[in-house]
């Protein structure tokens, strides 16, 4: 695991509010695996500027940087909140369905 402050960009998609991540191809992906990460504040700023551009054009809502670590190359969010955003509700969404 790297100890550097690594960050990626997340937002909610305008059409359905789903959690999305900014990719190196300047797309938005539902998979955190696809996220582009930034290892220093300068590149984080650039990443955020790109995301803000997409927010302005209305594809996504409320982009922000969040902290991740690279675990064997895989991006893993540091906070519980961001982990839950990648996985969906920890209680599932089908528990009560008959």
């Amino acid at each position, binding site marked *: 695991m790297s100890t550097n402050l690594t960050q990626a960009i997340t937002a909610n998609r305008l059409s359905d*509010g789903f959690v999305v991540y900014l990719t190196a191809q300047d797309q938005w992906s539902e998979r955190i695996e696809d996220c582009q990460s930034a290892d220093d504040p300068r590149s984080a700023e650039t990443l955020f500027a790109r995301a803000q551009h997409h927010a302005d054009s*209305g594809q996504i809502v409320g982009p922000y940087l969040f902290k991740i670590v690279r675990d064997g190359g895989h991006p893993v969010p540091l906070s519980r*909140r961001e982990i*839950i955003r990648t996985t969906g509700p920890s*209680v599932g969404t089908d528990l009560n369905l008959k």
Partner: protein
Amino acid sequence: MYRYDEFDHAFVAERVTQFRDQVARRISGELSEDEFKPLRLMNGLYLQLHAYMLRVAIPYGTLSALQMRKLAHIARTYDRGYGHFTTRQNIQYNWPKLGEVPDILAELAAVEMHAIQTSGNCIRNTTADPLAGVAADEIEDPRAYAEIIRQWSTLHPEFSFLPRKFKIAVTGAPNDRAVTRGHDIGLRMHLDNAGAAGFEVMVGGGQGRTPIMAKTIRAFLPVDQLLSYLEAILRVYNQLGRRDNIYKARIKILVQNVGVEAFADLVEAEWRHIRDGALDLPTEERDRIAAYFSPPPYDDLSEDCPALDNAIDAHPHFAAWMESNVQAHKQPGYAIATISLKPHGGIPGDASAAQMDAVADLSEQYGFGEIRVSYKQNLILPDIPKADLYALWLVLDRWDLATANAGRISDIIACPGLDYCNLANARSIPIAQRISERFSDLARERAIGDLSLNISGCINACAHHHVANIGILGVDKKGTEFYQITLGGVANENATIGSIIGPAFDEWQIADAVETIVDVYLQQREKDEPFIDTYQRIGPDPFKEKLYATDQAR
């Protein structure tokens, strides 16, 4: 039930059209999120962690079977097959798509429902005693007054931009099932010496980071002067309430700062200008609205019901359900049945579309097609003939809706917490699931008796943890979820705010801590004393000692 008049229909339809246009302009890029956000919030649409969330009002907690089926239909067609009933007599959908929300609102409008005033700094959905019209202890049905308040407050030109949101609750009974003291304004009905009805007016209650119970500013307000008096309160608040600091903007802070008596004087002074004016409804108009809530055509039944007695003797599980989930009715031969949305290990307040349909069917088969939504996040069938209770219970059981735990420790109020909510510090639902599983043994739960346990995922206190006998508040400590316990809260007519017992517990300790508290209670209680009485008698120390003796907490 209340039926929309022409004005209501036209108004709600117009709002749907308006919002459809706003959504289209947002999707086309014409509106920015900053411009759109206040518009969507005015229509009950939030953006949460994983998706949008639509909050639909259930005025005074009353639903028809038709409306319940519509809620099921929406869950099935536009969402993921379920909905979440909240303490504020709303239902929340967790997965609507932006482009489809106008269609959902149109579907709701077709059954006289909407999502207006479920958000924003306006007068919110007025809540009422869920047992309105049927409770044995009731003086008068409070829903007519809730409806009068709704009509007055909907789009009131002066009050759509208040300093902060404003919540009113009303009850027509001495036993308070609507937590009136927990609201910005609470109204509780009393009779004067001449036998005329009036309201005790309580102001400045609220939960959140500064929990305060509302104070009585008028012991008795004749019912016919309700609106002018409410208007006077709102005017004083609108003028003096703080708009510069969101944490100090609720009326509770204003009342605290100027003092209850001074605040009452300001209201009375304002009221003198407007009382006896055009605001208050003439008796005929009140009677017209009250007529919407007139009792259904009850049969003349005997209060004795041998068939029911036999079923109770023959089926212990049914007997347990009767004991916790069934209450006395005004009308002889009828009963009020609570449908628990708290299966052990389930998500408090969630109901699937199929369960909603089943409840709608049952309300028609055994009742008069009416369903209530309670403060406790449960459903209620208000008019069940006693002779039908056993048959009802059998069907409920098939739908996993017959958990015998109303008012018991596993009847937990829980907010969505960090599993859904954007503002959360910690998860609430998994904690509720763990605790309710811990107490799933029927005999043990019955032995513990009445006990309220509420869990909020942050200090906004949406689950009213401050007024629970055992309150649990999720906090974040350096990225880890912790849970702080308060003891001694009460949500009825003697509403009390609980006190923090000590350092917080982590997610793996919290269920043990609750069990420790329950053990102390069971050891210390005298005879049939409920938890809260034991707590008030012995105080927090015995609980503290046991909880922290073994260094359970960190």
